[in-house]
Structures are given as structure tokens and as C-alpha cells.
């Protein structure tokens, strides 16, 4: 069962080696993302749990989807559509924002759509992580909460919650959950958007907001979501 897949994967890896570095990363069209999500297979969480180990995902993202070290993204409680879309982006060579993306492009080599759907629903089935992070002081909390709930109309920043949910649980389509995300990963992601290094957001949906946020606001939002308690 595993062996033929193994060899097929190997051959694929070899033939893809050239292509991986050849094609330029680009922003997928909204229609493309819709089509990707529409054809996402029905996931099997139990199989996803096995793949989390066999494909080495757990090494960085945790046995239970909670990143064992602050450096990596937690995936527990993540919306399946977001995880699935991200894996497709990696496999389509769209993610080059930092050297960690290299590891992910390698990790998704040979993953089938079914594999991706399985791990995606597995992570979605897990309760969000609770990073061990000290909460913001009241003033900073108020600033972050204002951005989350009201945004900043003067800078054309939409409230984070309008897409990512009132409790950071994620929204429609591929909009990710943010609650329980590690601070490092959140900050890095926003900076990668801000610096135009991460470009797989349709219509520059995240890039345009990230570019209007200060580094301090990004850090405060990261801590806000990392320590967000469910009502």
C-alpha cells in the first residue's frame, strides 16, 4: 500500500525538481481558488491523523496540531478550506515568502488532493492551541480589539473580525482562523504580506491591510489572537 506510492512519489520528486524552481510564483485568481475549493475531496480526519505523522507534519506543527515551538504555525482548529488551499498553493509553487516555505514545498511533494483534504479536516477537528503567552496590557488590548472589531476607517482597514470571525474562528471560503496561533507565526505571516513576499491572497486581500498596519499593531494583534479566550 505504501510502497508503490513511495516510488511513484520519488519519481515525481525527481521530475519536479527542475520545475519547482523554474515557475514563478503568482497570485491565484479568485475563480481559481473557488474552483480549487469546490473540487476539494471529502476529507477523512482519521487518515489525516496518520498522515500528520507519516508526512512529518507533526514535527513542526505538533502531534495535536499545536506547534511545539513558537516558531511554527499551529494548525489545530484551522479551517479545512484554508489548510487545503495553502497546501495547494505550496504544491503549485506559489509560496516563496521565506525559507520555511521551501520546507513546505518539499513536504507537499507527492501529496494527493485526498491527502491534503484529510490532513485539513484532521486539523479542523482539533481544539485551537493555547500558546503560553502573557496577555496584553489593557491599553494594548483595547487598541488591538478596536482593530479587530472596528478596523480603522481612516486607513481603510476593515475590521479583522468581519472576515476572520468574532472569536478568530475563521470565516467563509479560505479565510483562516487566527485564534490560538503562535505569535511568531502570526507576526511573520503579516510581515510577509506587508513586504509583498507572500502573494497567494486573492485580490491582495491580506496584503493591502498588512501594508497599513504598523509593526507594533501586528505584534499586538498577534498576542491578542494568541491569548483570545472563547466567550
Amino acid at each position, binding site marked *: 500500500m505504501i510502497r508503490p506510492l513511495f516510488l511513484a512519489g520519488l519519481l515525481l520528486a525527481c521530475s519536479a525538481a527542475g520545475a519547482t524552481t523554474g515557475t514563478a510564483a503568482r497570485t491565484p485568481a479568485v475563480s481559481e481558488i473557488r474552483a480549487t475549493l469546490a473540487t476539494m475531496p471529502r476529507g477523512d480526519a482519521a487518515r489525516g491523523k496518520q498522515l500528520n505523522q507519516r508526512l512529518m507534519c507533526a514535527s513542526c506543527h505538533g502531534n495535536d496540531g499545536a506547534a511545539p*515551538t513558537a516558531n511554527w504555525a499551529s494548525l489545530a482548529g484551522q479551517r479545512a478550506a484554508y489548510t487545503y488551499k495553502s497546501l495547494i498553493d505550496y504544491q503549485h509553487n506559489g509560496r516563496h515568502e521565506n525559507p520555511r516555505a521551501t520546507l513546505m514545498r518539499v513536504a507537499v511533494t507527492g501529496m494527493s488532493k485526498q491527502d491534503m483534504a484529510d490532513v485539513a479536516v484532521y486539523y479542523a477537528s482539533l481544539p485551537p492551541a493555547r500558546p*503560553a503567552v502573557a496577555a496584553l496590557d489593557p491599553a494594548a488590548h483595547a487598541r488591538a480589539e478596536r482593530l479587530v472589531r472596528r478596523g480603522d476607517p481612516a486607513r481603510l482597514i476593515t475590521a479583522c473580525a468581519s472576515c476572520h470571525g468574532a472569536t478568530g474562528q475563521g470565516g467563509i471560503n479560505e479565510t483562516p482562523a487566527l485564534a490560538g496561533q503562535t505569535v511568531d507565526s502570526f507576526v511573520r505571516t503579516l510581515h510577509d504580506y506587508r513586504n509583498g513576499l507572500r502573494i497567494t491572497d486573492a485580490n491582495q486581500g491580506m496584503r493591502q491591510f498588512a501594508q497599513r498596519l504598523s509593526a507594533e499593531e501586528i505584534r499586538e494583534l498577534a498576542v491578542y489572537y494568541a491569548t483570545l479566550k472563547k466567550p
Partner: protein
Amino acid sequence: MGTLMNSPLLALVLMAATLSSAHAAAPGPTGEAMAATCAGCHGTEGRLGTGEFMPLAGMKEAEFIRAMQDFRSGKRLSTLMGHVANGFTDREVRAMAQYFARIQPGAR
């Protein structure tokens, strides 16, 4: 320094420090010495910018210790960290953890 050195008490303290530092060579390498073995991948002083490897500078002590324990037991999957973690004693892991926790994170 000269006047301080004249204090017999301080001389005693210093002698004790000398003895204990000579003695300290016995139980094992210092945290800094241990940490230097990580630098080939994890950066000098554990400081890395953005990279494939985990930057260790500024890592919380408890997080480092748990990571090493989990690598060692195999609870946490790894390519080769399990092998390396197996080569360190608990005392050494703690010494490294304390060393890295004190280092300012970020690229050198």
C-alpha cells in the same frame, strides 16, 4: 580592584570561586560550550534570521527543554534531532536552554 583584593573575605570568596570553577569542569561542558555545537545549523549563538532551521536565541527555557526531551523520546518526529538530543544529558539540555533563553533573538 586593588583595595578590594586586600579584603581577606573577598580572597576567600574568590578562592571558593576558583575551586568551584575548577571543579565545574568535572560535571560537564558549560551551556555556551554545548550551544556552540548547535550553531552549524541553528546559527552562531542560536541567532538566525529567517531560515529553515529553528532559531534558538531567545527561546523559552521550558520550551527548549521540552523540545529536546520530546526529540529524544521520539514523541516529536525529527530528521536527525532525535539522534543529536540522545547525545546530551538532562543537565546539558538545561544548560543549553538557560544559555539560549538569555540571547537576544534575531539575525546577527
